[in-house]
């Protein structure tokens, strides 16, 4: 008898997404949904969508959802979690959202040890607004606002969020993963699930940074985009767990 070994997780609605072909937002959505399914917390999970390409995440995750203003998802999640401490709360944010305008909110949610899980999609670009430089854009990378390539003198260096948040005591689990090939997708899934577990165990703030591809704004075919990610982003943004509680 045949048995399903791979099928749509319950937490994802059975609807098409608006993402471009080959956009890895779709993969990460699925990983988050699988983690929620496996932890069996779908019914008490609350998600917060950002402003960015994943703004419509609220239409895809089938749990209760909030749409936050640009960058403020960690503050919104704080409000939710303080009112409903027994719920599982996650935010899903891009690098413009989290690493630029939302710097204050994510740093202080981490410092407070807010018991939430942040899924941080680092695609080195402001995708939704048309491919502008993000804080995580690599040196030399051309974007619509760095037409001559990102210049260290003018724009500074790409921001490493995991390294930065890792020093905060309130951060309980911080990891950077990638989805550029199957092995890394499997690892990414593990990290995401672990982050939720650490949240549920009450250890504090958790964040998983996912190196992600934006074929459209990078001007690359989807498979080329994944190669570019592996060749350029992974070396600058080392993968791994930056912080994890010992007990789990």
């Amino acid at each position: 008898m045949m048995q399903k070994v791979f099928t749509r997780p319950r937490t994802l609605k059975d609807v098409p997404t608006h993402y471009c072909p080959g956009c890895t937002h779709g993969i990460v959505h699925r990983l988050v949904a699988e983690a929620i399914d496996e932890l069996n917390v779908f019914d008490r999970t609350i998600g917060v969508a950002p402003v960015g390409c994943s703004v419509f995440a609220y239409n895809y995750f089938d749990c209760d959802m909030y749409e936050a203003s640009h960058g403020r998802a960690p503050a919104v999640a704080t409000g939710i979690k303080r009112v409903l401490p027994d719920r599982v709360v996650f935010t899903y944010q891009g690098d413009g959202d989290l690493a630029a305008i939302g710097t204050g909110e994510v740093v202080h949610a981490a410092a407070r040890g807010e018991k939430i899980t942040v899924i941080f999609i680092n695609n080195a670009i402001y995708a939704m607004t048309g491919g502008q430089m993000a804080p995580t854009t690599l040196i030399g990378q051309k974007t619509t606002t760095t037409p001559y390539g990102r210049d260290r003198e003018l724009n500074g260096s790409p921001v490493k969020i995991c390294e930065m948040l890792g020093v905060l005591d309130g951060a309980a689990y911080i990891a950077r993963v990638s989805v550029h090939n199957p092995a890394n997708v499997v690892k990414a899934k593990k990290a995401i699930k672990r982050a939720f577990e650490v949240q549920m165990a009450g250890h504090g703030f958790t964040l998983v940074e996912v190196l992600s591809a934006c074929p459209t704004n990078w001007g690359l075919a989807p498979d080329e985009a994944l190669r570019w990610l592996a060749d350029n982003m992974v070396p600058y943004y080392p993968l791994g767990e930056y912080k994890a509680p010992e007990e789990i």
Partner: protein
Amino acid sequence: MAIARVTFHEERCKGCRLCAVFCPKGIITMSGHINAMGFHPATVSEPEKCTGCATCARMCPDLVIEVEKEAKKVG
């Protein structure tokens, strides 16, 4: 006989080719026709070679692919 079966929900496929690129058996190709969204959807050219490894499904950003496997073979 096939020990595994992959099903493509073709209308959801955006033709990104990631499944094809990563299938260890190299058995996924893009159809000649266009689906309602305007993409050439992926399909399995030699289904009998499929091992049910689900690598394709894992890399598909659009949940196009379902994978089934002979029950006894599953963990």
